[in-house]
């Protein structure tokens, strides 16, 4: 059974990693902790739901629409809310994004009410067997998406001009500006990319989860834990952190008590914060 527990934990970790990726990217580049992160996830899930409901579009296909949509929404949110306060204190960021969080939830509640909605696909429960172990396909796909997204990001940051500009801005703002980098444009793009990744996450989560206005908060809370654990701004750290939390949750759920598993990782979270706030991998750098 321990094998299955680990497998479940790792797959769960993939979900957590994918959810956290955008959050850690945004922080790494512009030092903003986006308290509205979960709500963007919620929006992406609703978008996927409605595309399925109205046009019968398979969630994996809807990635093609949801990701660009969230990219645009992310950039828009940056322009309207983040940019005016980019140089303000951390607390200002926290509460401004918290306000955005509440507003988005309010809009969702008003439009779609509080009850949850789900989609049904033929492959939601598809499972492959490896010996005594079973692996749920949609969860595996999420895990692979997490890895793919990280690799894609790495390549993007290393190889493209925009990517390099983003890295430069992350490391030395003034110097980058002196080099001719349009800082606000770069930040806007980076923010947009972070939210676009959230878009991908929302789409691939729909086969196995229901959406309702406060679903974002559930995921976001874990995302914060993962991001701190892996090191803010550290992409690989998001993956490792996600897997660690997933495994911890799974193991403590089975061997301690299911009702306490969230409590376990919160306690770990506080311990990490106290002992090593820079996370497993240390300083925040966009590599």
């Amino acid at each position: 059974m321990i094998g299955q527990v680990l497998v479940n934990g790792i797959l769960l970790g993939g979900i957590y990693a994918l959810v956290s990726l955008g959050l850690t990217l945004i922080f790494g580049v512009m030092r903003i902790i986006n308290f509205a992160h979960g709500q963007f996830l919620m929006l992406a899930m609703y978008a996927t739901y409605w595309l399925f409901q109205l046009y019968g579009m398979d969630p994996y296909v809807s990635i093609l629409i949801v990701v660009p949509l969230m990219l645009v929404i992310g950039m828009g949110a940056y322009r309207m809310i983040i940019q005016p306060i980019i140089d303000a204190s951390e607390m200002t960021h926290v509460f401004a994004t918290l306000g955005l969080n509440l507003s988005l939830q309010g809009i969702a509640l008003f439009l779609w009410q509080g009850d949850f909605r789900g989609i049904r696909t033929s492959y939601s429960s598809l499972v492959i067997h490896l010996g005594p172990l079973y692996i749920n396909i949609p969860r595996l796909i999420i895990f692979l998406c997490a890895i793919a997204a990280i690799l894609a990001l790495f390549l993007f940051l290393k190889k493209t001009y925009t990517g390099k500009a983003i890295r430069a801005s992350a490391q030395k703002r003034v110097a980058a500006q002196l080099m001719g980098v349009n800082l606000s444009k770069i930040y806007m793009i980076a923010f947009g990319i972070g939210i676009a990744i959230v878009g991908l996450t929302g789409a691939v989560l729909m086969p196995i989860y229901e959406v309702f206005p406060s679903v974002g908060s559930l995921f976001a809370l874990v995302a914060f834990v993962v991001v701190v654990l892996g090191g803010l701004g550290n992409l690989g750290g998001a993956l490792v952190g996600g897997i660690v939390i997933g495994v911890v949750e799974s193991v403590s759920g089975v061997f301690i008590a299911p009702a306490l598993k969230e409590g376990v990782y919160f306690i770990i979270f506080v311990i990490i914060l106290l002992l090593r706030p820079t996370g497993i991998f240390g300083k925040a750098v966009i590599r």
Partner: protein
Amino acid sequence: MKRFYFLSFALILTILPFQAVAQDSVKIGCVLPYTGALAWQGQETFRGVQLAAEMQNKRGGVHGKKIVLVKGDSETLKTAVTETERLINMEGIKIFAGWYSSSRAKVATTVTEKYGAIACIVIAVADDITERGYKYVFQPQGRATLWGELSAEFVGKEAAPKLGKKPSDLKVAIAYEDSDFGTSISVAFARKAKEYQMNIVAQEPYSLSALDLSPVVLRIKQANPDVLALTPYVRDGILFLQQAKDAGLSPKVLICPGGPLANDVFGEKLGDDMNYMLVTTCASHDVRKEAFQPEAWQALQEFVERYTKEFKKPPTNDAYHGFQGAWTFFHYGLPRAKSLTPDDIEKSMRSLVLKPGENITTFGYQAAPMGHKNAGANLIGHPNVFQWQKGSIGHLVYPKEFAKSQLMLPMPAWGQRAMK
């Protein structure tokens, strides 16, 4: 210009009288969670209550007055209290039906009792609602204890033989969401199961906001039970069943002693895999006509017809509950009262006795007298057990006198549950 103003002024004057609530009506407060996490359930319950009111109004209302439902939103505990108070103090309402969840019902009835207002708890199952010796609180449908106990009884008496086992041979696992709803029902189930000497091999509460229930599934799977008593809410129920399917957890009997598994959404999500699962609720669904008195049967049919016509689908579990509780109140309790004061209504509800079949429920009605541990509860309010068959939950299998369908057990493995 002037003429326009006068015209509109006159128009408004003519409309105004219609806005005023007619003198010949009685306001009844209906406090339910219309928003928030339980919004869907609250709205469905309201539909039931509303249809009961409309149907009774068609039959002449109560004491010649039309029933007018006034809504209050019990989204959270705090608002349940505030809204109840608002209706009592701002709208002068002394008759209530509603609240939905047990904790909301509990705190709100503290308020109604303080003001001496009549509270008919349309659906809310916790025992301790009626354990406070309140005079004006009535609970026409079953209590958690009864739901949990009856489910265990059902497993022992009906399910066990189908598996060819004695109750004491059965291995039983219990899983539930850890709020008051799941806990109270499961605790009662466990108690009764022990009386039948069943072996409880796992008892797993979990947080209903969990993103992953596979630990619960794995722990239960390891205990290898014959019977699983699962009391989730809807969302976590779906997640649990899907992950149970992934893991291949397939007990021979799966029963939900609490009701949520009767939601159509499960059928939509899991299709034929829902077949063979059992759910305990009070709804009078799929019942034998012969077991009812004609008048009650007619009322039941009318409800189903109206609901189906207006909402384009068969009534949901919650709608049934709302209707049943309200109908007992609007059709039997209120008209029999000497007047519409709380005291007279109380006397009426206290003395009302309905045998099974006389009411639209499969159980009758008999209020526990003052001094009883659960004063105001329905002493004979027991729930029914339904089974998912052919992709629909509407198959009553117990009590047998009311049942049209046959109980089918044991439950096959996942993917093999299609029924012709």
